[in-house]
């Protein structure tokens, strides 16, 4: 079979060079109720393995669509999208290019309920990218899966279950993260990965993401509607409203001196309900 022959050379430590995705005046329009709805309008953004960026905004602000475009799962209607200086479309057109890109850039999406095939085991889902993208044999892939699950504090035995046999969104979301981390991506895109989780689980998941990013010197693009969790993870913040970027800057800048009305509201709300407390590192 063609798929088998064209496996990339095994072991995947790979190129640790800089990985960068640059989007310029990105546009995406959907048709809702016969009306054109601009989900993303003229957004310039550069993400890479050297930066951690958070995107906050209310639902419908276009932040998820932006993440999907940057991950290559959604095609922009306008603007240019380059991966390491070459148009992303070129990369995705060929099988090798597609695999290169997917190995470097992975998206974890927000959907907890449908993010796994109900008929297949979780192990199957996590193992597939290791086999297809990193060219690992079945045994090696299993070993890699176990390693990743261990760092995410999931018992590998649980991997042999089907998604509905695992109770709790927290566990399932960890598997979704494992599926992305198993190929050791250089840039990780996260779309609302903790919003559906209980507070007691959120912290653990966020800690794991932070550990991965720091230990692998990987980039992060973190989409969320909550400021505190986002601020914990990233150095830069982007605030989106109605498909446009209304404010951007370093996390400290925005948290301390929010300019836009929406940002000010969010920061004020977070200040009011939260106690300011620093946990010793």
């Amino acid at each position, binding site marked *: 079979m063609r798929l088998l022959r064209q496996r990339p050379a095994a072991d995947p430590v790979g190129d640790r060079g800089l990985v960068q995705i640059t989007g310029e005046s990105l546009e995406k329009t959907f048709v809702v109720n016969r009306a054109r709805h601009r989900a993303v309008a003229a957004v310039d953004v550069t993400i890479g393995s050297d930066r951690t960026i958070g995107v906050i905004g*209310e639902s419908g602000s276009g932040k998820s669509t932006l993440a999907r475009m940057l991950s290559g799962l959604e095609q922009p209607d306008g603007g240019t999208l380059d991966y390491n200086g070459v148009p992303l479309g070129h990369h995705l057109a060929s099988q090798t290019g597609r695999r290169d890109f997917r190995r470097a850039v992975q998206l974890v999406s927000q959907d907890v309920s449908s993010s796994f095939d109900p008929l297949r085991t979780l192990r199957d889902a996590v193992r597939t990218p290791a086999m297809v993208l990193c060219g690992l044999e079945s045994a090696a892939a299993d070993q890699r899966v176990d390693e990743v699950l261990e760092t995410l504090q999931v018992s590998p035995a649980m991997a042999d279950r089907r998604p509905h046999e695992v*109770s709790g*969104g927290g566990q399932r979301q960890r598997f979704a993260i494992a599926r992305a981390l198993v190929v050791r991506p250089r840039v990780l895109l996260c779309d609302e990965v903790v919003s559906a989780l209980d507070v007691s689980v959120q*912290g653990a998941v966020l*800690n794991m993401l932070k550990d991965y990013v720091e230990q692998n010197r990987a980039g992060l693009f973190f989409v969320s*509607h909550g400021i*505190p*969790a986002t601020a*914990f993870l990233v150095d830069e913040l982007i605030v989106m409203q109605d498909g446009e970027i209304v404010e951007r800057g370093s996390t400290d800048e925005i948290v301390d001196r929010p300019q836009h009305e929406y940002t000010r509201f969010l920061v004020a709300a977070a200040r009011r309900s939260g106690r300011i407390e620093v946990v010793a590192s």
Partner: protein
Amino acid sequence: MTEHPVPGPRPAQRLGTPTGPLLEVRGLTVGYPTPDGESVAVRDAALSIGVGEQVAFVGESGSGKTSLAMAVAGFLGGSARVTAELLAFDGVPLDRNPHAGVPRRTPGMAVVFQDAMTSLDPVWSVGSQLTTVVRSATRCSRREATERAREWLVRVGLTDTRRVLRSRPYELSGGMRQRAMLALALAGTPKLLIADEPTSALDASLSRTVMELLRELATETGTSLLIVSHDIRLCQEFSDAMVVMYHGAIVDAGPSAELERTATHPYTRGLLRCVPDLGARHAHRLPTLDTVDTGVGAELVRTSVA
């Protein structure tokens, strides 16, 4: 004041009621039959809510908070089994063993559900739904009902009443739907409004707006509130009293403002400290139930995270 449920009969907990209790619950247990015996969702719950009081049930998924609220409302699914030593609303004892078929409403009680999109009847206009409620509550003329419907919309902040009355739910934005849902629930002038996760489908800013509105309207109309939520911080800010549930039992209860200080159960204290805040951005790690010092061993932690 706060008391942990211990086996055996005991008085209902009073949550600082201004006047008399509107809702009284004692020894309430909810179970669901499963192939291997009954699974208990709520065990031996006791509480009371006074007139005009605003109480929040908080807890994580599977803690039984929704089961408890729905048992009070009488909207549990067909197979659930409810037993209670005492379950009285407005002085009237309630039978909450669900009967088959379309459930009936308890007079004086209104319920709003998590998602306005699925709660609002999609095929009727907001106006038609709202005037029906107004007319059944006050038996007034059609014209008068429309006028009152308009007033309700204005009260929940939907000023473009002409358009909203004509619209069907799917034609409104998420925030407008949520407001319309509140108008519908309050238009029947209930004494108790039970809100099941009113904000969990909303983003951070809309959540606050809805909670503010809910509290404001309830205060204005003198309606008691029973809010079910997983957002412990939001409830702390927008309720008078809180009831913390964990694995089907009430583990902490008391005035919201003092919960931080009065919480006795390790789970509550752990939970309160887990919520990330703005200070977290300077932290190396976020606190989790494992790492916060709650005064108990790791046993509790293991069961709660799973």
